[in-house]
């Protein structure tokens, strides 16, 4: 069985499936031609709990695996912003509350979209503990903690999608959709970073882009979120050897200019902190 058969089966149950995963039927046909094979053996895995500790050590290896990996991250974000938005007195009313609602609605839309694409292969939502076992005990009572964790989730999300690009290579529908979600997460990350900057304090110098490794002002707790963001070399070119408007690019500019991917095991290690065993 290949992906086409799976999609056809889904389409029989859900006639609007094609429209939901792509506005263009032609795009679907195109994807089949490219022929990303998904073996039947992969399906039981897709139905099992994604974030078992055992699975936390291994990366997705196929399209469904990537989609379920993405879905789990979107579940996490959707629930986080839903709980935050619902907590009276946490987020200042006005622009801040509005922005968090905007982000929440996108994350919910991502969950629904990915569930629609995966159909019966979608993993169930895990139970989340956003205090991470007490490490962020005030996450829903202290606005700055809430924003800090939001930034960590968004920056992680951007890196997580990037890390799976290889598996989706050449897949017009799924790769394009993943990229379309990925850039939304980056827009969120930039805005949340700006919100934190406006709060001052530890985040007073926060930029919308990532400078070096862990520029968050949150502390070592989020080091894994930013590990490797200090990379200076892109495609064999060390960016600091290139010349910009006023001399060589600084490491700050070199690292801001490129967002780095994060491997699935690294992302899962981060996400597992917030998932109840």
């Amino acid at each position, binding site marked *: 069985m290949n992906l086409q058969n799976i999609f056809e089966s889904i389409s029989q149950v859900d006639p609007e499936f094609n429209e939901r995963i792509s*506005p263009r039927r032609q795009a679907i046909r195109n994807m089949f031609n490219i022929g990303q094979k998904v073996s039947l053996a992969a399906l039981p895995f897709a139905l099992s709990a994604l974030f078992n500790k055992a699975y936390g050590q291994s990366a997705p290896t196929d399209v469904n695996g990537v989609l379920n990996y993405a879905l789990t991250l979107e579940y996490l974000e959707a629930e986080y912003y839903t709980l935050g938005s619902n907590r009276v007195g946490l987020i200042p009313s006005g622009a801040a509350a509005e922005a968090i609602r905007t982000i929440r609605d996108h994350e919910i*839309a991502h969950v629904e979209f990915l569930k629609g694409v995966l159909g019966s292969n979608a993993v169930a939502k895990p139970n989340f503990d956003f205090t991470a076992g007490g490490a962020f005990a005030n996450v829903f009572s202290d606005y700055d903690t809430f924003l800090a964790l939001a930034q960590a989730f968004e920056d992680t999300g951007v890196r997580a999608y990037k890390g799976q690009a290889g598996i989706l290579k050449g897949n017009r529908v799924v790769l394009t959709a993943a*990229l379309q979600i990925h850039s*939304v997460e980056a827009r969120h990350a930039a805005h949340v970073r700006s919100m934190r900057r406006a709060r001052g304090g530890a985040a007073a110098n926060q930029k919308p882009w990532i400078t070096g490794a862990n520029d968050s002002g949150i502390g070592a707790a989020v080091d894994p979120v930013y590990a490797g963001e200090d990379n200076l070399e892109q495609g064999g070119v060390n*960016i600091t050897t290139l010349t910009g*408007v006023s001399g060589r*690019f600084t490491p700050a500019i070199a690292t801001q200019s*490129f*967002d780095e991917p994060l491997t699935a095991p690294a992302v899962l290690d981060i996400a597992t902190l917030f998932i109840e065993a």
Partner: protein
Amino acid sequence: MKETNALKDQLYAEESDHTSKGLQRRNFLKLAGGGLAGVALLNFASCAKDDGPDDMNGSGLYFGSGDIAILNYAYALEQLEAAFYIEVANKPFSGMTDLEKQLLTDVRDHEVAHREFFKAALGRGAINSLEFDFSAVNFSSRDSVLGTAKVFEDLGVSAYNGAGWLIKDEQYLLLAGKIVSVEARHAAVIRDLISNGSFANSEVIDGNGLDVSNSPTAVLQAAAPFIKSKVDVRDLPTY
């Protein structure tokens, strides 16, 4: 404007039976066109005529084929953005705040870094430097500068999103991914400078929470009014 509409309709005819999405994309293009005095698509029409014998004689900058062509396409867009922000930093609009100056200078440096990266990575395969025409932009006007920046950033995001699946080499795809999220951060910042909270509004994000994606053809069409140099994209993968 009739021609503009005809081109738009032709471009998105495929999507015309999916009303909401089709409308959303049309609005995006309209938005892009609006900031550009509505000339974008008309200019492309005249460009399209050049796409014949002239270019076959090698009079345009040839992008190459396959992944090289896509990298040159990205290089061309980064050249456009870099040239624009260099001008913005050189001629700050009236009333530019310190924070705005800092953000726009960072964005300039990122775009120049992207440009220089592509130039270095492409080596002898790189197209020459393009010449640009920013006469439609009033660099002393905050509205004009940020409005144009918004168009460029949203367009850049849609370009990388739409070209990803055309890339054959995994490393190139990853590099595009590393750049597009930075462009998305720029887009969010520019949008928030124009109107706080518009970082990811319904102009660019659809009901599925998906950002805009455009084919190379659609992107080059929108960028055409700003590009003075003649380009030969006959072997650029597109759809």
